């Protein structure tokens, strides 16, 4: 009986397969170098959903570290009070996990957007709040009055605690003409007893009780 290795067909087959393996290996190796992804794409995606207040209420020093913790499975998705339920739902969608209610340990979701305000008469210029601000939104120097750049403030309130003279307040951003928008009309099932709809225009805003009082 002839040895299996002496069969030329078998040898050709082995050579062909090895050749293919080497070829594909080279292609894959090249591809993995060429299309290398810097960083973890899922972390990026999670980070883009988080509200970037950098408040640390989740227990991590900023939104990106929290995103990394979520991606690695260390942290739950329900620890971001500034983002609230909307952010949790978004994260749940992205990661295909169940949406949890907000973790009460981290804090409570606040309805209003707030910004820090420094009472300038009381400020002693200690720069403690400047060091605490995660987004460099406080302007000032040692022994000079400090002030908050409102447009940069994320409302994280990290500057409130370090202030030795309690001169920082969190104030609610008032709704103005620039950020006013229509709200959803009350659904028919929720219509309150005695609620008077004086609006007849279908496109018009339903008067609220506040308006009547005003």
């Amino acid at each position: 009986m002839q040895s299996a290795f002496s069969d030329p067909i078998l040898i050709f087959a082995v050579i062909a397969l090895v050749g293919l393996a080497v070829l594909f290996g080279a292609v894959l190796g090249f591809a993995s170098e060429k299309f290398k992804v810097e960083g973890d794409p899922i972390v990026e995606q999670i980070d883009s959903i988080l509200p970037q207040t950098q408040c640390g209420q989740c227990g991590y020093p900023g939104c990106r570290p929290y995103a990394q913790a979520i991606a690695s499975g260390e942290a739950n998705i329900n620890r971001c009070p500034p983002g609230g339920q909307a952010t949790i739902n978004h994260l749940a969608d992205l990661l295909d996990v169940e949406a949890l209610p907000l973790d009460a340990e981290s804090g409570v979701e606040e309805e209003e957007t707030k910004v820090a305000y420094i009472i300038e008469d009381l400020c002693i210029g200690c720069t403690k709040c400047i060091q605490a601000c995660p987004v460099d939104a406080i302007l000032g120097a040692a022994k000079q009055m400090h002030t908050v750049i409102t447009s940069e403030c994320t409302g994280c309130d990290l500057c409130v605690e370090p202030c030795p003279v309690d001169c920082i307040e969190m104030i609610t951003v008032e709704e103005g003409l620039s950020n006013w928008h229509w709200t959803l009309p009350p659904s028919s099932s929720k219509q309150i007893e005695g609620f008077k709809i004086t609006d007849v225009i279908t496109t018009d805003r339903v008067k609220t009780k506040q308006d009547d009082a005003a």
Partner: protein
Amino acid sequence: MSQNLTQRIKTAQIWDIPGGIHPPENKAQSLKDPIAEAPLPKQVILPLAMHIGAPAEPLVQVGDKVKTGQMVAEPKGLVSAAIHASISGTVTGIEDRPLAHSSGMSGPCIIIESDNQDDWVDLEPIDNFRDIDPATLVEKVRYAGLAGMGGAGFPTAVKLQPRHTIHTLILNGTECEPYITADHALMRERAEDVIQGALLMAYMVGEPEQILVGIEDNKPDAIEALQKAIDRAGDSRLSQRVFPTKYPSGGEKQLIQILTGKEVKSGGLPADLGILVQNVGSAVAAWEAITQGKPLVSRVTTLVGDALGRQNNYLARIGTPIADLLELAEIDRNKSDRVVVGGPMMGFTLLNDQVPVTKITNCLLVPSLKELPAPPPAQACIRCGLCAEACPASLLPQQLFWYAQVEDHDKLRDYNLFDCIECGACAYVCPSSIPLVQYYRAAKGDIRESEREKVKSDHARLRFEARKERLEKEAEEREAKRKARMEAAKAKQAASDSGKSSDGASDLVAAAMARVKQTSANPEETRLKLERQKKTFEERIEGIEAKIAEAESDDIKAKFSSQLKNTQKKLDGILEKLDSLENTASQEEIAPAPEKDAAAAAIERAKQKSEALAGMSESEKLKSTLASLKSRQEKAAAKVAEAQASGADTLEALKTGLGKIEEKILATEKQLTELGED
């Protein structure tokens, strides 16, 4: 392609738009009489943001006298419009006043109290606009404060500077919304100005091939007047297009579709197709602004509704309080319970009738309760599909309604929510009386807000990361510096070591001894240095004093004397340092063991004390603390007295120190008594 399109348009063909509705027109009641001029208001309120874009910047101050037509606020940024005094008088305030806005909010306004003179500024009319460069004319329009008179209020000058070549100018005289007749009356009475204004605008945008006037067939008198004006103008590019009445044919994109058969693509502008649409009111305003030099200070407003005694079109000064106009039209407040700005389809209810007429107020509708009864409460959607049939933008209102209810922003975008023109046709036909447009408006607002938040959070992320990077870099730099210092110290050590030849341990000791010696030798050196400094400063003071004596003017004297003060201060500092140095030197002399470190002694004392305390009971501990505190208090009191006597500036500090010790004594005593009670 543009050739093709103009060919098609030339055939005078009319296209149709999808959807649309035919609500009762209710236009006759306000067209019985010609436009009436409203009397001069006693006061005008001019909001700084009557147009779309950046609010204008005030040019006047409270107390300033202004003449009619004087610019009181200038445009700020590219998309903005100027604001002019619509009466002559005095500026009595620049403050927040309620605005004719669906939110009922207030905004900054300039308030002018009338002097009843209506004294106009000197106008600069241009007889032949063709002598002037179009860009100059556009700038004039900008400073005449023109903003889209059809209701949107987009600054006219911005539209007159298109980035594309315009081959067709369309004048919008459609006015499709029920009740409103402001444009109709204007076309009927001032057809000549409308057509001349159109030719002027055509000149400003580079003479397009076509000038079309689009008008619905429910305005026969206006059509006739316009046709006469067109014939008189004798320009072959002008032609009138009459098309069947249907709501909302007057929307910009809808009108383009009707007249050209072309659709402006989602998110695009008419200019992309080479088309520019202007309202007839804007054409008249532009004509007046150029040929008479008259800025936009008045507009035609329709006052209509069964609750008004005199329904008519009024030429009102901009800024006139709406309440004044309502009185003029003999409002019966028993018949009505609300005033609507705009028409019944797209208008909004005013929450306050003290708000002013603005450049975009084309209609004030005061319906009686019988005329426009309250709608029945909204019921569930029955999926009848009537809304989709009525939608002029070919959207799916039902789907939008569902997704708006659950706030699914991605889906709303997929269904092109932002192509909705909020015409209200869907809500008009809805058998369940669902206020659909309210849902769309709310959803649009939500989406815009979340977009704003997204931008803000991206910005915050950038700043956070930049800060992190900076902190890391700083830490690295510090580390590098520390290392460099360590290396340098080592190198120095090695260099000094190489000079001597002894073993390492005794070397270290020797080095330490040398350092100690150096520090102990230091006071003498410092003293010498300070003395030298003292000398130079004293010399300098003398020099300055001499200069002061020589100086002639007070200015120079003041300069030198401040210099002298500074130098004196520095000298004082040096003297003080010398004093303290001598004091420590004398103390060291008194002390028997100067090499014994004061800190070490203090630690020793503290150790002894704590050992002693460890052996005591709680009350004993407290008692001993009390005793030591009392001795400290005595010492402090002595120091305070001394300071008071010498008038030293450390008095305050010493006093607070004493106060603190006294506080501590009180606290300790309290603790003691509490312990005793236990």
